[in-house]
């Protein structure tokens, strides 16, 4: 008996991901800042959508209040920068503060179920917003500039911001991957599939959900830090806007919930739509909304779900594959002896029982 973590070798995906990261890291040397600025935006969205996917796609927690942590992250950077700490260095602090804030908040919102949880998280975000606009030194309701970075040469600043965003996005995806590959990943997929059964086989559902909630807050906090750094200012009503939740939900839904790849693909699609159709004004929003509804209705696993089920493609394998002694080596590429027992092709996810 032998167990591997995917049917095919995971090495391929790791090498591919490394190549992509290295290629992306060289971009500031080869393209203009408008491209890297666009990518900073994309990296922030990838982080946000991945964090929302962890909550909704793996824990069944529908939050519309993750902007609370986007705001906490941004204001942490602001406070530290006002006290002379370099904004880039403050990114890890933003992450930690957001996680720390999420722990007590989780005890509050986890008392609520389903739609009440969603509303509860939104209320928390609004409370954070109302509290922060009262602090004059942080700009109140009119916003304030991020001190320190404006003095740096813009070309260098844009490059460092870009690398920071790339690092945060890479770390967020890596953390998601490692989390899902760990035993807690098994807990989460079990909870997602059948919460009652998960409890009855010994999964501590609430602790697993709380851990993910805190991780998700940390990721959103880091994204908030990147936002204030890339914009060089912060406006409370913008950073605590429920629009962030709308974007996370849209991207995660069209890309595909319940996979690491989904939010990455979703971000690409979102940016493409945004770039090509933003000038359409209100029509652009109507189009986004209809697309999300259509995908939610007809492709519950999103576009990535469609691709991966058709092509049996997994860039980030997190599963377990049991090789029995009497079956051929996995390197032979056909671990199961009887073809008919293998995954039937072209089938949708057979839900229900």
């Amino acid at each position: 008996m032998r167990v591997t973590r995917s049917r095919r070798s995971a090495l391929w995906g790791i090498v591919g991901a490394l190549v992509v990261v290295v290629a992306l890291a060289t971009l500031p040397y080869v393209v203009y800042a408008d491209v890297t600025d666009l990518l900073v935006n994309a990296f922030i969205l990838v982080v946000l959508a991945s964090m929302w996917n962890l909550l909704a796609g793996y824990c069944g927690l529908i939050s519309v209040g993750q902007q609370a942590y986007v705001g906490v992250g941004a204001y942490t950077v602001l406070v530290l920068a006002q006290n002379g700490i370099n904004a880039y260095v403050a990114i890890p602090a933003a992450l930690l503060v957001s996680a720390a804030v999420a722990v007590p908040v989780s005890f509050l919102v986890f008392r609520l179920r389903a739609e009440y949880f969603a509303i509860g998280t939104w209320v928390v975000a609004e409370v954070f917003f109302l509290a922060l606009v009262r602090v004059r030194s942080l700009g109140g309701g009119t916003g304030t500039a991020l001190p320190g970075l404006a003095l740096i040469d813009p070309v260098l600043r844009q490059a460092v911001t870009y690398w920071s965003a790339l690092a945060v996005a890479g770390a967020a995806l890596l953390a998601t991957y490692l989390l899902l590959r760990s035993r807690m990943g098994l807990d989460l997929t079990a909870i997602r599939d059948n919460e009652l059964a998960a409890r009855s086989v010994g999964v501590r559902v609430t602790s697993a959900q709380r851990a993910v909630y805190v991780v998700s807050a940390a990721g959103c906090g880091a994204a908030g830090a990147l936002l204030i750094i890339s914009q060089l200012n912060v406006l409370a009503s913008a950073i605590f806007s429920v629009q962030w939740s709308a974007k996370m939900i849209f991207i995660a839904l069209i890309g595909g919930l319940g996979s690491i790849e989904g939010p990455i693909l979703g971000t690409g699609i979102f940016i493409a739509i945004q770039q090509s159709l933003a000038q359409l004004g209100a029509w652009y929003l109507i189009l986004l909304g209809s697309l999300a509804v259509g995908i939610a209705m007809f492709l519950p696993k999103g576009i990535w779900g469609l691709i991966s089920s058709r092509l049996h493609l997994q860039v980030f394998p997190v599963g377990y594959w049991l090789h029995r002694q009497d079956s051929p080596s996995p390197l032979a590429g056909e671990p199961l002896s009887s073809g008919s027992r293998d995954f039937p092709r072209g089938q949708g996810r057979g839900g229900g029982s």
Partner: protein
Amino acid sequence: MTAEAALLELAGVSKRFGRITVADSLSLRFQAGETVGIVGPNGAGKSSLFAMIAGDLKPDAGDVRFDGRSVLRLDPATRCRMGIARTYQVPRPFENMTVFENLLVAAYRGGQLSRLQGYTVAARILEETGLSEDANRPAGRLGLLQRKRLELARGLATQPRILLLDEVAGGLTDPEMAALVEIVEQVRQRSVAVVWVEHVVHALTRAVSRIICLAGGRLIAEGDPQEVLANPEVKEVYLGVDIGA
């Protein structure tokens, strides 16, 4: 109370859903290494009894003691880690996980095994329960029969000290039934208590040393399998139900 300490003890457990009584001051005891059958008509409260033991359902009154200690205030996950495993009459597989992964999560959490132990135990149980061929299939693609096997296998993977089986034998062929009885016997020999709710009475009589008959949440009869099944009151509650089927 007898001198022998019971592994699981229900003391005056009652539960009502509106006007339906699913447990009416039930007092039952189960010993380690014992196989007990539970029979009774549909709606007798058998599945609800399992739910109250496992922690999915709170009794209105009475106590559930495991190893001499009340577990009423413990959640299902904790009870499972202590050694109480249940299967669901309507299977509840983790549909998007493979069969092997379904067992792994049970072995890691319920059984609190290490990574390697988990692999070994899960693979062994798949072999025992005839699910090896399906190890890498998503559980959602299994048919009803295989889903029932998975319920049993996942329960076993939690390393139970008491295993509550809720109608896992329906639809099995005779050789499959014999294999199931064999599994239950092997589990019992590891001094696990097996409590088995089943309508297929002839399978039950081969596997258990004691039968409990419930109806309307009340204990109708308890004791030697043949004697309980010959009991006129038991025949009465089963009127119209072919208990030999």
